[in-house]
């Protein structure tokens, strides 16, 4: 049902965990749907230097979380905001149609984390 790359990211997820004193945190999904994702980011000079995740969900939810942490690190915030759900799915070699909507939350999670970072920056200013 899942591609080899999805299974790889699911069984050896990259960058699992929380970042202490994260610059931004994105929380998306809800347990009712069966998928919840927290994305933590560190930002230096407008560049994502560290991205980590914690996820409650199916294989696709965990694999997309892991995938996006790899895709996002080293990107500028603007570049990171351009990553779409489809980009993540494509990078993983595709996702089953039934999973495209519910479990493919990682791009939303990253966006929420960046927004959280920007809100915090505005408050500081």
């Amino acid at each position, binding site marked *: 049902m*899942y591609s080899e790359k999805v*299974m790889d990211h*699911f*069984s050896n*997820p990259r960058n*699992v965990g929380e970042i202490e004193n994260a610059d931004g945190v994105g*929380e998306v999904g809800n*347990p*009712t*749907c*069966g*998928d*919840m*994702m*927290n994305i933590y980011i560190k930002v230096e000079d407008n560049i994502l230097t560290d991205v980590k995740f*914690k*996820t*409650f*969900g*199916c*294989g696709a*939810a*965990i694999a997309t979380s892991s995938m996006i942490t790899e895709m996002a690190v080293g990107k500028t915030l603007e570049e990171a905001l351009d990553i779409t759900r489809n980009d993540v799915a494509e990078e993983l070699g595709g996702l089953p149609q*039934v*999973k495209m909507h*519910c479990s493919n939350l990682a791009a939303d999670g990253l966006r929420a984390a960046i927004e959280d970072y920007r809100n915090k920056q505005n408050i500081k200013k």
Partner: protein
Amino acid sequence: MKQIYMDHGATTPVDPLVVDAMLPYFTEKFGNASSLHSFGQEATSALEQSRQQVAASIGAKPEEIIFTSGGTESNNLAVKGVAYRNSDKGKHIITSTIEHPAILNTCAYLEKEGFEVTYVAVDSDGIIDMDELKKATRDDTILISVMHANNEIGTIQPISDISKLAKEKSIYLHTDAVQSLGKISVNVDELGVDLLSLSSHKIHGPKGVGALYVRKGTLLQALAHGGSHEHRMRAGTENISGIAGFAKAVALADERLVDDAKHMTQLRDSLIGKVMDSIDDVELSGHPTNRLPNNVNLRFSFIEGESMLLFLDMKGIAISTGSACSSKSLEPSHVLTAIGLRPEDSHGSLRITLGKDNTHEEVDYVVDALVEVVGRLRAMSPIAGKMSLK
């Protein structure tokens, strides 16, 4: 890698003795039971012996057995067959909220055809609410269909109590005994049913064959029209090899029932006890004791079932998140919703259905694997330790 199969509620391996019983009917005894020559007579004799075997197992008469392609067809024939044939008496059907999709979707189809269906609720253990059932009966009720044992949570229903009510009100009673056959006693007179569905592949028989018991005098309409096979209730050349295999599987299940049930109950209780002892925040779904000997349904807080299933599969363990029929949809199980679980609790559920050949060593291996997998996923979960899902 070690392979452990604990998804016998989905299907079972065919017993080698069953395969032996089937083989002659593919090549040497390949006749059509409707033919009058000796090839046909051989097939007829196998067919009627099989019918006697299946009938005897459930306390029925041979002429009360209709062979079908399996549980789903049997359920369709029972519900639609009674509905169409008795619609002059009424168009009201009663069933439960936790039936197999083969009943629920058949009822939904009949609703579109102008029948009315009442879905009676179950309690938190999955037992049907008898008061609500009683209140649901009407003068125009023609059928009550309640499953003998549930396929997801294993809860066994009080069919003989329902039978008293049905008899009092002269309503036909059907039960889906697909999951209970071979695990607990299935006897049509003790249960007091008019119709009963059976399937072969859940009891180490081949796929694609099953039966519907129809008590003598029950008014039923055929759904498939053609030749005069199966007492004109199910047209089509009989699947002799499959039927012979089914009958052999029934015979073996009867012989082994007491021992198998005892063995599976021990494994079940050991598995539940060990998981509860070694993992926190786990609950058993379904009735604690009034459940199938081989059914374990556990919900693990803070994590999701599919990811548990995938990790266990990598360790060679085959289990399921709900029933195999619904695992490709994302909706929480209708059964777990009906027993009052919130969607977030349902999502963390696993169904483990044991078989006669599973061992205590396998149970221990599965418990160890669960400890590891649950720990791993909880470490990844954003809600573990932060909120209680109960």
